[in-house]
């Protein structure tokens, strides 16, 4: 570039100092946003999936847990390890390999029982025995060091290694403990044990769904570690159709008696956790999130990535300006001098004509005309404004959702109860009596579990059979209402999607040779079994299918949720410590305060960019319209009218931005709610739309921001010197 051209460029920039500064700031912010997007996109765009495909991952890992009884409550598994059952034979997992839809199997691999092995920090480790030749399906991905070659070696997953602070070559301590005592549940480590040491030779990534620290040793080393103790076993299956995962799991469970200690962890659940955690909070928790998910951690300061971002922005700027630059190069000097601002104007814009016809004052009409006379600029400014408003609308929706979550997290599919009670063998009537004896308890819902087939489809669907005060429990309904009659049921969102059912539909339930026709009164959100669940009256279930169906648990609502812990303690005491009573905190505070700052930051960023862009547009307009302002002042436009003209233009653009941004924002909000619901398998509409008053409040706020923002360019227009400006033109 010649010095003369450079001088022209610099002079041009200096002559529009503020405009140049704002343009620079906007480009810098855009580059930053693009960098973050690339980082997040690259880092979190299915990081789990990348590893999964690299290792030819198993879609489901079944684990046979020695001495365990597994029950389902509250949307999760409850694994109780009982010393009495330690010598019971483990179920034969290989039967699962014969299920229709299973394409490949891996294992069974022996794994250490829960809390048999602990890290030096007392964290449970799941140590799997794998051969020196890594399996072709479902094995871990070695990302650092090497795989096992000798018995004294251990390979750890990246999470476990990071938490314990181990590096390649370090000596890893594994503390071997005795089997847990009777009735012990996961979450209560036992610390006495002997210490074994291995040399860490590699770090691996394991998409195998076990979030306890995973580690691997050769079979001989594993046998030496276990001594005469018996291991659990782990069996992986890869499916020909991953969408049939739930069906395969149901079929697998049906192979074994109920309560058999087989745990099934599927790729859908893990992917949901990975996506939910990473995508929602990724921008600020990349390192932690990625480590927690045991996937590759994108470096925040990856130079090639940053260069890629900068190149991307440069390319966009180039593409945006090349056309104008080529046009400038082709300009005829005579034409350009005659018409410094391009083609002759075609008169007032349509909005200005409408404003004039409406009888608005000429300064307002001029302002609207200035804002809309250049359609390309107006559209570009509107688009940036609209993006800010879209983000605002979404954030308002998020706040409305947060407010709803503060009342109850049932909106997210959690159980709406305040206290969970496990009968633990206590009699149903005695349990209900014990609970009702507490005056603070407002509602009692008894819960039992069963399975039925729906409309003759072979897969069994879990039934949440409810009794007592279920009618008013505030489950979150996507359509319809809670069941009220014995021949009514409500179905979970997953079931509605899977079976194509909705409120008002009639279905036939069958179990044990009996059938019953019922009507679906509503579709509700339930995280248990990804919403593939039916809720029906326990009396109706007993009458139709199983008179002996036991009540295994209860959900309680209390008058004052803050007293849940004390009420729970009182109930426990009233039952002689037989009932297992647990207050459910379901406190969304942590989730809210993780997401809220991100949303507020993004909103402020986009609104800031929109305001800067508006300012830049206004400054450009004022500079281009110097002559017009001078003429207007010459024919009698007062300074306040000039200012009003600029402010009117800004407010006009602000209003148009709202008119465009709010409907788009509502659409985007709804789409995002559906998308997040899809990702976390919680069904559509995973959120509350912003309330009308919130959107209405946006209007004066936007106008105030536009008016305040237009003050500076307005003052510039007011100070246009009449004679000098006309002479310059």
């Amino acid at each position, binding site marked *: 570039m010649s010095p003369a051209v450079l001088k022209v460029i610099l002079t041009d920039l200096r002559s529009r100092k503020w405009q140049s500064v704002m343009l620079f700031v906007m480009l810098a912010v855009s580059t930053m946003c693009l960098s973050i997007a690339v980082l997040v996109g690259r880092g979190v765009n299915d990081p789990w999936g990348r590893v999964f495909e690299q290792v030819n991952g198993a879609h489901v890992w079944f684990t046979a847990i020695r001495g365990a009884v597994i029950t389902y409550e509250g949307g999760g598994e409850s694994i109780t390890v009982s010393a009495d059952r330690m010598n019971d034979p483990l179920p034969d997992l290989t039967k699962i390999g014969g299920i229709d839809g299973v394409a490949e199997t891996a294992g069974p691999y022996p794994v250490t029982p829960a809390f048999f092995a602990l890290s030096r920090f007392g964290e449970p480790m799941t140590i799997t025995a794998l051969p020196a030749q890594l399996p072709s399906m479902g094995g871990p991905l070695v990302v650092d060091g090497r795989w096992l070659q000798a018995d004294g070696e251990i390979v750890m997953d990246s999470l476990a290694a990071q938490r314990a602070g181990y590096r390649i070559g370090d000596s890893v301590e594994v503390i071997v403990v005795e089997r847990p005592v009777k009735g012990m549940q996961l979450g209560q480590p036992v610390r006495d044990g002997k210490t074994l040491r291995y040399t860490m030779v590699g770090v691996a990534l394991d998409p195998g769904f076990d979030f306890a620290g995973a580690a691997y040793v050769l079979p001989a080393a594993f046998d030496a570690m276990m001594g005469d103790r018996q291991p659990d076993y782990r069996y992986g299956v890869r499916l020909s159709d991953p969408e049939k995962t739930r069906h395969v799991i149901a079929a697998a469970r049906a192979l074994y008696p109920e309560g058999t200690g087989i745990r099934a962890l599927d790729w859908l659940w893990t992917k949901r956790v990975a996506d939910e955690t990473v995508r929602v909070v990724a921008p600020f928790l990349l390192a932690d999130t990625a480590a927690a998910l045991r996937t590759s951690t994108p470096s925040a300061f990856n130079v090639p990535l940053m260069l890629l971002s900068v190149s991307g922005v440069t390319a966009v700027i180039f593409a945006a300006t090349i056309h104008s630059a080529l046009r400038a190069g082709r300009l005829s000097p005579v034409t350009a001098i005659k018409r410094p601002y391009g083609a002759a104007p075609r008169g007032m814009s349509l909005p200005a004509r409408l404003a004039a016809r409406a009888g608005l*004052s000429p300064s307002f009409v001029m302002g609207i005309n200035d804002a809309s006379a250049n359609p390309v600029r107006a559209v570009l400014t509107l688009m940036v404004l609209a993006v800010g408003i879209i983000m605002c609308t979404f954030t308002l929706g998020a706040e409305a959702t947060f407010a709803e979550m503060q009342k109850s997290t049932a909106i997210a599919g959690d159980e709406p109860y305040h206290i969970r009670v496990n009968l633990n063998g206590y009699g149903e009537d005695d349990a209900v009596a014990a609970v009702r004896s507490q005056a603070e308890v407002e509602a009692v819902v008894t819960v039992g579990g069963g399975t039925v087939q729906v409309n003759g489809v072979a897969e069994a669907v879990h039934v949440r059979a409810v009794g007592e005060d279920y009618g008013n429990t505030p489950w979150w309904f996507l359509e319809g209402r809670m069941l009220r009659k014995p021949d009514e049921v409500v179905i979970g969102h997953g079931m509605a999607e899977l079976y194509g059912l909705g409120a008002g539909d009639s279905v036939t339930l069958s179990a044990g040779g009996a059938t019953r026709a019922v009507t679906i009164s509503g579709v509700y959100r339930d995280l248990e079994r990804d919403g593939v669940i039916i809720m029906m009256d326990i009396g109706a279930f007993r009458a139709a299918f199983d008179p002996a169906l036991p009540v295994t648990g209860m959900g309680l609502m209390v008058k004052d949720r803050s007293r849940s812990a004390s009420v729970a303690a009182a109930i426990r005491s009233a039952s002689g410590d037989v009932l297992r009573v647990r207050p459910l905190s379901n406190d969304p505070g942590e989730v809210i305060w993780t997401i809220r700052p991100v949303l507020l930051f993004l909103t402020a960023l986009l609104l800031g960019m929109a305001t800067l862009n508006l300012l830049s547009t206004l400054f450009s307009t004022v500079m281009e319209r110097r002559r017009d302002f001078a003429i207007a002042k010459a024919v009698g436009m007062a*300074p306040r009218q000039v200012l009003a003209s600029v402010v009117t233009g800004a407010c006009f653009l602000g209003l148009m931005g709202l008119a465009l941004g709010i409907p788009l924002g509502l659409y985007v909000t709804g789409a995002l709610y559906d998308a997040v619901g899809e990702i976390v398998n919680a069904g559509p509409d995973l959120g509350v739309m912003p309330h009308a008053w919130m959107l209405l409040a946006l209007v004066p706020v936007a106008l105030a921001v536009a008016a305040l923002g237009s003050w500076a360019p307005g003052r510039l227009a007011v100070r246009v010197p009449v004679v000098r400006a006309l002479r310059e033109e």
Partner: protein
Amino acid sequence: MSTILSARGLTKVFDVSGSSVHALQGVDVDIESGEFVAIMGPSGCGKSTLLHLMAGMERPTAGEMILDGARVSGLSEAQWAVLRRKKIGFVFQSFNLLNNLSVAANVELPALLAGVKGKDAANKRRELLERLGIADKEHAVPSQLSGGQQQRVALARALVNAPEILMADEPTGNLDSKTRKGILDLLRQCNAAGQTIVLVTHDARVAAVARRRILHMRDGRVTDETRTDGRRDVKGILGSMIAQEA
């Protein structure tokens, strides 16, 4: 005839790159109602500056002005804007129409700024455009008009509020001879109807249109004044010498 505008000791000093340029040096001017006054002089003599000061588009460095009996020297920009709407019409050499507005909107603008209702402003506009022979152009935009037509529109705009005084700065400077004649005829007609006009020009033929008075300027001073009644009023030392000679 009453004095509509009176200026005493008008001085304007411009600061150009650190040095002072004395554009006007103590100019005294009286404009009487119904007069057609031409201010003539070579380029850079200060005639346009004088006009701009009289219209309030520039502030004098020193001096006093009285317009329609009221002292206007120390008025604010907002007050001058009101004055320009109501009492002063201005026509520029380069027409200075608003390119984004139609002819009709351009002409109506001062009226609307002065608070005239839309309907009344439209009526005034139609009447003026009719009088100036461009009624058929009311929906056109300035870029679609010839120079002469644009200047007629500018004239209509300047007259829409029936100003006390019409000021024209080289109104025919950008026009060909035929068009120039047309504009000058219009100005004459306006003056014949009683409009007070102050016109600035460097062209003697244009100045000759001003039947009453021609003020001659040189180096920021009024040096000479010619009246249609044959009287000459030569200002300054040269003037007094010539008077003595006479």
